[in-house]
């Protein structure tokens, strides 16, 4: 009987142990990985692929193997062994370069080809962007796409994608010695960046930080501040002019940018050439549209394939070297419209003014204008400083006298810009004055006032001057806008 007891107990114990794990089995079944490809991380997947033995070796050499076996997720475009055969061996021997090569083939986050239609730009671990489309990485064809791994995805490509220069790097490397390059070089300046400077203390009096001398100095370029073609994240089409074309442009534009000295005139002219040579987006030579608008100033360019001497793909777009450039001058030397209400100051700041909202009867469009009346001062002026080119301007205004029955005259005058206040605002000597012109009743049209040409390129004060009487109703000022239209050749 005792034996039977033992048997019974053993049986129960055995049963118990045997089935304790039942619950776990259900979970194991549920959790079982159905797709064998996601069992391994990227590194193991790469190492397991004989086609990628070279890439796998370079991963180890560059230390990226540790990255790919981490739990962050990545996309890897692995060139196959045949692809590496075509790469310059010296490139592969240089570890620093190799790091750039390998790092330039890895991005964070998994990206499958299904996500790449239309093509997407992705930032690689070295900070360079690559263009990933369904069939290609930049120009390299994807041989085997979408190999899943535990922590990302692997695409096999047939060609090693070397890190590309961006537009700026390409320009500074290959075209620094062109006229355009030399000028842009002049735009470099040094700047103290408080963020990268090392702070060593605080000024006891002002509380301002004191930086360690020699730290935080950063070289900047004014061109890049205007259009940053060094930015990996924007996509640009950049145009480099051959020296001949550059000279041609200088000649063409010089007349409009005259200053007191030849050097200043020259510098101004060149700035106005180079500032407008960047276009948003990548425009392939075959896809160039009739009109390209430049970044910021929207100068209307007409770039034709025939003028392109050289085309270079860069990491942030495309660069063209052209021997001639064509654009609409009126989009470069633009007409100037001065809204009446956008004044800087006027003769007596105590005087009240009105900004009216008016409707043009025929078209029902709405405009605002400036109205100053019943202030009892003669030759009252309103000032509008503007940058003007050295070109003849035709002056127009729209001045709507719809508030009184009597008419009154106004005129325009110009004077070099002053920043200071006037000691005697009632008696200013103007450089140029256009004659008085009567403001007719209910005239919504532009009225031609006359021509004038500034002597120098730059800021000029434009004055709107009221009638030289103190009579209310006769010295009124009303202005919708003044328009200065350059007379171009």
């Amino acid at each position: 009987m005792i034996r039977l007891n033992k048997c019974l107990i053993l049986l129960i114990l055995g049963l118990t142990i045997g089935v304790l794990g039942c619950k776990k089995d259900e979970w194991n079944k549920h959790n079982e990985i159905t797709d064998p490809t996601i069992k391994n991380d990227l590194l193991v997947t790469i190492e397991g692929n004989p086609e990628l033995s070279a890439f796998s070796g370079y991963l180890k050499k560059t230390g990226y193997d540790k990255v790919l076996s981490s739990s962050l997720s990545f996309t890897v475009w692995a060139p196959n062994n045949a692809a590496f055969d075509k790469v310059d061996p010296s490139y592969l021997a240089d570890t620093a370069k190799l790091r750039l090569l390998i790092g330039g083939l890895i991005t964070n986050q998994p990206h499958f080809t299904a996500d790449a239609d239309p093509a997407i730009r992705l930032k690689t671990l070295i900070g360079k962007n690559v263009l990933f489309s369904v069939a290609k990485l930049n120009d390299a064809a994807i041989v085997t796409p979408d190999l899943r791994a535990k922590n990302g995805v692997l695409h096999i490509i047939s060609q090693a994608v070397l890190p590309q220069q961006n537009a700026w790097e390409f320009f500074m490397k290959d075209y620094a010695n062109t006229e355009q390059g030399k000028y842009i070089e002049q735009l470099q300046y040094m700047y103290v960046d408080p963020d990268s400077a090392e702070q060593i203390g605080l000024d006891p009096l002002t509380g301002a930080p004191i930086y360690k001398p020699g730290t935080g100095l950063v070289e900047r370029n004014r061109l890049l501040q205007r259009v940053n073609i060094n930015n990996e994240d924007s996509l640009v089409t950049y145009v480099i002019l051959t020296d001949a074309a550059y000279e041609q442009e200088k000649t063409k534009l010089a007349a409009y940018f005259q200053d007191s000295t030849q050097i200043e005139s020259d510098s101004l002219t060149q700035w106005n050439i180079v500032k407008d040579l960047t276009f948003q987006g990548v425009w392939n030579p075959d896809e160039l549209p009739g009109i390209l608008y430049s970044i910021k100033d929207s100068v209307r360019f007409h770039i034709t394939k025939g003028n392109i001497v050289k085309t270079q793909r860069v990491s942030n777009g495309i660069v063209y070297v052209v021997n001639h450039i064509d654009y609409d001058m009126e989009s470069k030397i633009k007409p100037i419209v001065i809204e009446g209400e956008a004044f800087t100051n006027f003769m007596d700041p105590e005087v009240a003014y009105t900004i009216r909202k008016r409707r043009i009867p025929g078209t029902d469009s709405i405009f605002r204008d400036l109205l100053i009346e019943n202030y009892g001062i003669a030759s009252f002026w309103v000032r509008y400083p503007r940058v003007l080119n050295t070109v003849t301007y035709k002056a127009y205004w729209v001045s709507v006298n719809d508030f009184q029955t009597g008419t009154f005259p106004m005129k325009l005058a110009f004077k070099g810009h002053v920043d200071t206040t006037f000691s005697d605002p009632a008696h200013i000597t103007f450089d140029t004055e256009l004659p008085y012109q009567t403001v007719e009743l209910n005239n919504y049209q532009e009225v031609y006032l006359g021509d004038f040409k500034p002597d120098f390129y730059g800021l000029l004060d434009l004055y709107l001057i009221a009638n030289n009487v103190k009579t209310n109703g006769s010295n009124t000022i009303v202005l919708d806008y003044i328009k200065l239209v350059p007379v171009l050749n």
Partner: protein
Amino acid sequence: MHKQTKLGSKIFITAFAFVFLATGAYAGNRRDSIAVNYNREAKMTAPADTVFVSGLVKDAATGQPLVGASIQIEGYSAAISDNKGFFRVGVPTLEAVLSVGADGFQIKQVALKGRNNVTILLYTEPFGSVYDLVNLPLGMRPANQVSYSAVSVQVGDGWRQGSKASVESYLQGKVAGLDVKRNSGTPGDGANLMLRGFNSLYATNQPLIVVDGVPYDNEMYGNNLISEHRYNPISNIDLKDIDNITILKSGTSTYGTKGANGVILITTARARELATRIDFAAYAGFNSQADNLPLLDASGYRTLISDIMGTDTSLTSKDIQRMPFMNDDPSNPDYFRYHYNTNWQDLILRNSVNQNYYLKVTGGDNIAKYALSLGYMKNDGMQRNTDLTRYQVRFNGDLNLSKKLTAAINLSLSSNQQNSLNQGMASQTNPLYLSWIKPPILPSHVVGDDGKVSPNLADYDILGFSNPVSLVDHMQGFSKYYRFSGTVKFAYEFNPSLHLQTLVGVTFDKAQEDFFIPQSGVVPDTLDKAVAYNHSGSNLQRFFNLYNDTRLNYDHTFGGAHHLTLNLGARYSNYESEQEFGKGYNSATDEFVSVGMGVASLREIGGAIGKWRWMNGYFNADYDFRQKYFLSFNVAADGSSRFGTQADEGLKISDHSYPVMASISGAWLMSSENFLANAGFIESLKLRASYSQSGNDDIGNYTARQYYISQSLLGMQGVVRGNIGNPALQWEDVAKMNLGLDGSLFNERVSFSLDYYHNKTTKMITLEPINTATGFSYLISNNSAMQTDGLEFSLNGRLIGNGALSWDMGITLASYKNKILQLPGDEILTQFVDATYQTKVGQAANQFYGYKTDGIYNTAAEAAASGLLNVRADGSTAAFEAGDVRFVDNNGDGLISDADRQVIGSPNPKLTGGFSNTVTLKRWKMDMLFTFSTGGDLYNYQRARLESMSGFENQTEATVNRWRSDGQVTSMPRASWGDPSGNARFSDRWIEDGSYLRLRTLSLSYQIPVEKSALKYIYIYGTANNLFTFTKYLGYDPEFSATRSVFGQGVDLGLEPLGRTFQLGLRLGF
């Protein structure tokens, strides 16, 4: 009876004759009354035309003849077996029934069936026999004479069960048709009891529990502050204090409108003998930590969330790399803080211990007998810093005040202290849930830039998850509850046939909660007027009940053949409940944990009060002829303060409606018929049928009336209508039809019981939608109906039964089918967390109603080819993408919208039951109980939240299989931020088969032999609970019940699971 002590207990069967001859005392117990009647008749001279019957009485196990067994014909004659087991007794006719019994053996009714020579085999007690007495509401009867469906459970093994067993959990698997679903693994959490399915949608489905004649209120009054914390009053009764539990499945009319869901009658243990007996037991055990859910580790988590973040259109790749946890540079100051691999589950859960001490003293003299028990229990919870401590005392006394007047007293008091934590839906303050979703990359403690770990716990993280460790350590979820119940019963005997008894019971219950959620480590909550950094709360619930039951009882046997019992009585119950709570917010520091410390302007107070009364007049008539044909009739008329004054039904007396509930039943003990005299293998065979009406009064205390509630508007206090009173509101009617066959074969070696029942509920309460112009969304009315049909089967057998070794096996099976017959609008949809239930005419109630799925779209081409559009909550549509779940367009309109939902499962099990084994070998005894449930579906809400892949929550390991690119063969959809395609919506993805087979209890006991001394016996117990569970269900546990509502069954909120527990116990008897 006062002379009883003078007699030796071992020969008391023979001595009973003289004792009762001399006293004629009534003991109120069938076993005794047999003796009583026998004695009374023995005094009479036998009639001249007596027929004599001779026979032999033997021990069924050993076959040895039994000496001194008593044989009698009720109301006629009696005899004692001689030293060879032979007897000869005079009978009025050969149709008569002999009652045979012996000390330590069962009492048995033997129908002569025309025979004049019988051999009778008796089993030693305890033995589940058809002759066992069943405790019925109005007295006791042998099981083979009961015409209703009733099951009696002798709680003889309560000592072997250890301290983990409570009344409800003990009944699990033991009674066919009683589906016991334990609420959770939290100590003392109770269970959802469903007897024969459910009879109501909105009213209670819990059976009425009657303890020692007094309805035991097992409800909670008011809401708890601790989320998913439940007070379960029935757990105050220690299993070791219970003698017998009877489950009355039909014939509950006597309880009127409280009997709809059946009745569980609990009888607590009383002193059985006059000698003083002391029993002491000590148990200690071990609760093992639940198996951790297989969740992602730090690296899996990081890969997953980088995928999820990749789908968030507002985040660029750079933004993602900038997240502190995506940084792998150790020189980064955040590096250490986000490069942990924390197993949060291990920080919350633990292995724990339980202990229980219990002392019982019984004894007395012929005037007074007493049973006194004292208990102490401490059970640590599965989560750290949770436990339940209980002290309890019970005193049961029996007094013979005079020859005619007896009294019985029951007093019990228990006190519980429990430390618990938020569970369930409190997503930011539920440590268990947080331990699953909290990113494993984070540390539990503050970590410096240099990686050094501070002893301070970390605050909530940048992803917006509270620190579960902080909650476990600093949350206060302390509750105290007390229950006192006292009853006194007087019984007066006018003559041996006529008795009057009255019982008065008082119950007082008080539950109090102290609650505090700290600021440290917990995400602040947003209130209407402020941001809540810490929360305090205090909650008090009281319950009071005064109960009286008075009845006149007549019991007489005419001419030895016609036995008539009549009862006429009335019950009265007065209930009072109240709740008061206060909530406070933003106390100055986490050390100030009381409501008064919170900001005054944010304090909230509230409460509820309830008063209701119930009275019940009842009449009962039971008749049997020659213990062969049985008829029973019960009728009761109820009055309740809850019923509306314009109720349709019921007896109208001065503006009040009194439902009249009647039941009638009959049974035919076929085995007592002569034509079965030669079928010796049939011990007993009884066919029974009953029809009973009962009702459900759980319709709300004030729902039938119009009431007002207070309302604050811009600081002005006023009252507004609180409801639309329905004066026609009445009880629910439940009519129960029952057909049954009870049998016992091969000299009781095999017994079975088969029941078919049909329950029909009419006048069922539903929430009827009404015009929104009323300002209310529904009206409570009696306008629906449903029915439940079921089959139950139980089988018990003694497979081996010789003196040294016995093996008893039992099986219970139950199955039911529910069908809605009538509903306003033919259909109702109800919501419980994310699950929707459909209840529709012609179908079973509470069916899971959601989307069917058919895998996922493996490729973009497949998704496009389907042409389906997903209709989002805001009405916009979007096409499905590759990796999305392929929802079935049920109505074929090309849109996946609410209209495509269909029944995707049913939480109602198809078959439930238990399988028990008891093996006794000399001094060893082993109990093994399996319980099972099949065919029920479960909504794994826990998994739905852990596989939705739509946020920063940690997920299960299965999410590694998520769809990543075209052509990937997997069933796990893609990870997507915010789940725009609704892949995690309520669908059959989360519906799992909840079938299980569980080794519920395995206990082993050994009686150490002791020399005769003061110490009478020593038992050693070893008990294991929930040892293993066969299930395909992936949640913690397929057995849980988040709510007692029908519309919440089968939804797994992820409560603490029922873990494996092991206990060792020692019992000393003096």
